[in-house]
């Protein structure tokens, strides 16, 4: 039986086991929408802005590990998706973005709603395709999913001219695909591993530093074994939080610009650094020439291009994190009794001294609501077990510092691109994936306004999210930089007009609650989570000029923190 190109697309999605597509219609994709109309296997979630579709698919992917799928029209549909594609790209999130294109004979003519989607997205995708022939649809989708989900994952754009989606073809989905030009690295180098292990066993001041790669690669279990069998301290990046439990005594918290004192000091003074699925981002390393000055570095990563990109490493092990750590654990095995126990004990004593600094202390008795306090209370109310998305700014850092993530894929934020507007739509994707789990979006009064329209999507699909607005009246993170580095000249980091968020939430059909005193924080949170089937928007009026501490100013070393 012959299918139209549009029907073939649906069949491809079904073959890939896709349950949700996030999208927004338009002329170039009308055949595809017509095909959606005629089936019930793949549910289409209608967002209010294409950026929302990309972040929702992204949130879905981060929470589940499965690829998120987006469908948008040509021209403005595609350009509106660009921010979300770049966001997914920077954090290596598997995503398929189907963009409609003008009919083939019009391509290059400046046709109505024509943009070169493949050209525009080229630097922000793992790969992209323009399909020229209806016969190529199935194979292209197979390739796209394969590329997006293997190796170091990433978004893949498929641009499809409208005429092709109406043409007919016999459908057959390839069961396997071989691409001569794409072979994700998977062979692990034993000589490097053995050398690395020798170094690890001799270490006197070792440090394990892990990143988002452990979460994306589902390597948590292997990481637990690795860290616990060694008994070494572990610090995790913003993107890595949850891969190893924050509540474990071996965890010294997050590192980097807003990392803990103990994590950054341990990094600075360590003699062997074991980096796993982390990419030595500038927000983590601080000034490169001052980074880990006394350490030999071992780096395990799935992406060969991450090795020695920013920091030259001594031993590199390239492969899937699960495979690499399984082999490392096997090689380590009983050898862990050769660890330099005396030195490690001294090292822990030093680290515990740094811990005693209690760098995350703040005024817990404050009557004015402290943003940190809201996050700590949220942790208690949700037993530390909610899926938490965030936007970008101080509230994001406070969440990373104070929520204490114990499980992978629970902490969902835009770390690489730092995209304000990410939190709410991402939370929609998470809630659709896990309808029975608590999902909260931590945001700020500035960030939330970048994708507020999605409150309407939440109403349509009955997504009972909890939106936690830490409303300090400022673009807090911008204001903090202006306070520290621009002598408090608060240029444009303040809105003279803000909506009444309670009324805003209510107008979208949700529940809005304004909270102004510390003593009301806990009851408000409890009330919000009691309302199982309602989206509750909590507008917390917080301390206006609270800062995120510790902070490493840009260009400083990890040992040069500003403390409270």
């Amino acid at each position: 039986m012959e299918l139209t190109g549009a029907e073939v697309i649906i069949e491809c999605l079904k073959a890939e086991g896709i349950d949700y597509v996030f999208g927004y219609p338009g002329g170039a994709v009308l055949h595809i929408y017509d095909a959606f109309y005629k089936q019930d296997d793949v549910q289409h979630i209608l967002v209010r802005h294409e950026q929302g579709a990309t972040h929702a698919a992204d949130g879905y992917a981060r929470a589940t590990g499965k690829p998120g799928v987006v469908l948008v029209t040509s021209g403005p549909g595609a350009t509106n998706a660009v921010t979300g594609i770049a966001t997914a790209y920077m954090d290596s999130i598997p995503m398929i973005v189907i963009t409609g294109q003008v009919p083939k004979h019009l391509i290059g003519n400046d046709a109505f709603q024509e943009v070169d989607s493949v050209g525009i997205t080229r630097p922000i995708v793992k790969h992209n395709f323009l399909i020229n022939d209806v016969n190529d649809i199935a194979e292209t989708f197979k390739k796209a999913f394969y590329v997006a989900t293997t190796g170091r994952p990433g978004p893949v754009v498929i641009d499809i001219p409208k005429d092709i989606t109406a043409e007919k073809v016999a459908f057959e989905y390839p069961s396997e695909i071989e691409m001569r030009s794409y072979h994700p690295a998977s062979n692990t180098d034993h000589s490097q591993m053995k050398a690395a292990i020798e170094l690890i066993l001799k270490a006197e001041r070792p440090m394990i530093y892990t990143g988002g790669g452990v979460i994306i690669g589902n390597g948590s279990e292997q990481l637990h074994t690795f860290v616990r069998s060694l008994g070494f301290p572990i610090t995790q990046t913003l993107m890595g939080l949850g891969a190893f439990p924050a509540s474990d005594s071996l965890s010294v918290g997050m590192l980097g610009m807003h990392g803990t004192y103990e994590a950054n000091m341990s990094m600075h003074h360590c003699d062997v650094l074991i980096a796993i699925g982390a990419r030595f981002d500038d927000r983590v390393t601080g000034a490169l020439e001052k980074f880990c000055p006394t350490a030999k570095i071992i780096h395990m990563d799935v992406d060969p291009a991450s090795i020695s990109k920013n920091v030259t490493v001594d031993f590199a092990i390239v492969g899937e994190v699960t495979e690499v750590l399984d082999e490392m654990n096997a090689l380590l095995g009983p050898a862990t009794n050769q660890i330099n126990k005396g030195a490690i004990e001294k090292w822990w004593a030093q680290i515990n001294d740094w811990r005693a600094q209690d760098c995350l202390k703040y005024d817990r008795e404050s009557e004015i609501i402290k943003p940190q306090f809201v996050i700590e209370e949220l942790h208690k109310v949700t037993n530390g077990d909610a899926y938490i998305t965030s936007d970008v700014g101080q509230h994001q850092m406070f969440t990373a510092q104070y929520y204490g993530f114990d499980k992978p894929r629970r902490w969902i934020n835009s770390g690489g691109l730092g995209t304000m507007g990410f939190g709410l739509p991402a939370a929609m994707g998470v809630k659709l994936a896990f309808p029975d789990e608590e999902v909260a979006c931590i945001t700020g009064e500035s960030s939330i306004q970048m994708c507020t329209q999605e409150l309407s999507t939440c109403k349509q699909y009955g997504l009972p999210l909890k939106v936690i607005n830490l409303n300090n009246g400022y673009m807090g993170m911008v204001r903090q930089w202006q306070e520290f580095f621009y002598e408090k000249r608060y240029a444009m980091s303040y809105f003279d007009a803000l909506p009444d968020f309670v009324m805003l939430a209510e107008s979208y059909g949700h529940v809005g609650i304004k909270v102004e005193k510390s003593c009301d924080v806990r009851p408000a949170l409890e009330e919000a989570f009691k309302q199982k089937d309602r989206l509750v928007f909590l507008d917390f009026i917080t301390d206006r000029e609270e800062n995120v501490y510790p902070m490493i100013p840009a260009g400083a070393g990890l040992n040069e923190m500003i403390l409270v």
Partner: protein
Amino acid sequence: MVYEENNTEAVEMRHIISILLENEAGALSRVAGLFSARAYNIESLTVAPTDDPTLSRMTLVTTGTDDIVAQVCKQLNKLIDVVKLVNLTDNAHVERELILIKLVAEDERRDEVKRIMDIFHGHVIDMTDTTYTVEVTGDSEKIDAVLKALEHITMLEVVRSGQLGMARGGKGIV
């Protein structure tokens, strides 16, 4: 310590890289885009289909420190369209470039140009009453030498192909 090491290694060198890539629309722009997005240098770049029409062969000349060129190669390898990449600089290889020059050749200049072409094993491939068009192939040093030898003659147009490269020995990259 690490800092000093990096500093002493930071000599910029010329590298010639041979790339086999899918002969598909957009493959070339992916390579070119990578260089501009990451602020790497391209000195020259040649590309054409191979005997297998589904593949193109590209020769790319870049300059950079060893660290940077290693990154360039890794990033190129990461492009989905790149099938194979060899940094020819690492081993014995041959390089050739073709230059076409249209120059004013009148009176005694006509013989002089032909003599220079003999020396460089070049050819006159087109002529008018007043001009010659000549071709010379060779490595870049030779091409530079030709240009130097013709310096005093008025050149109307110069076209260089950029480098082509191939490893020496019996093995090919496929």
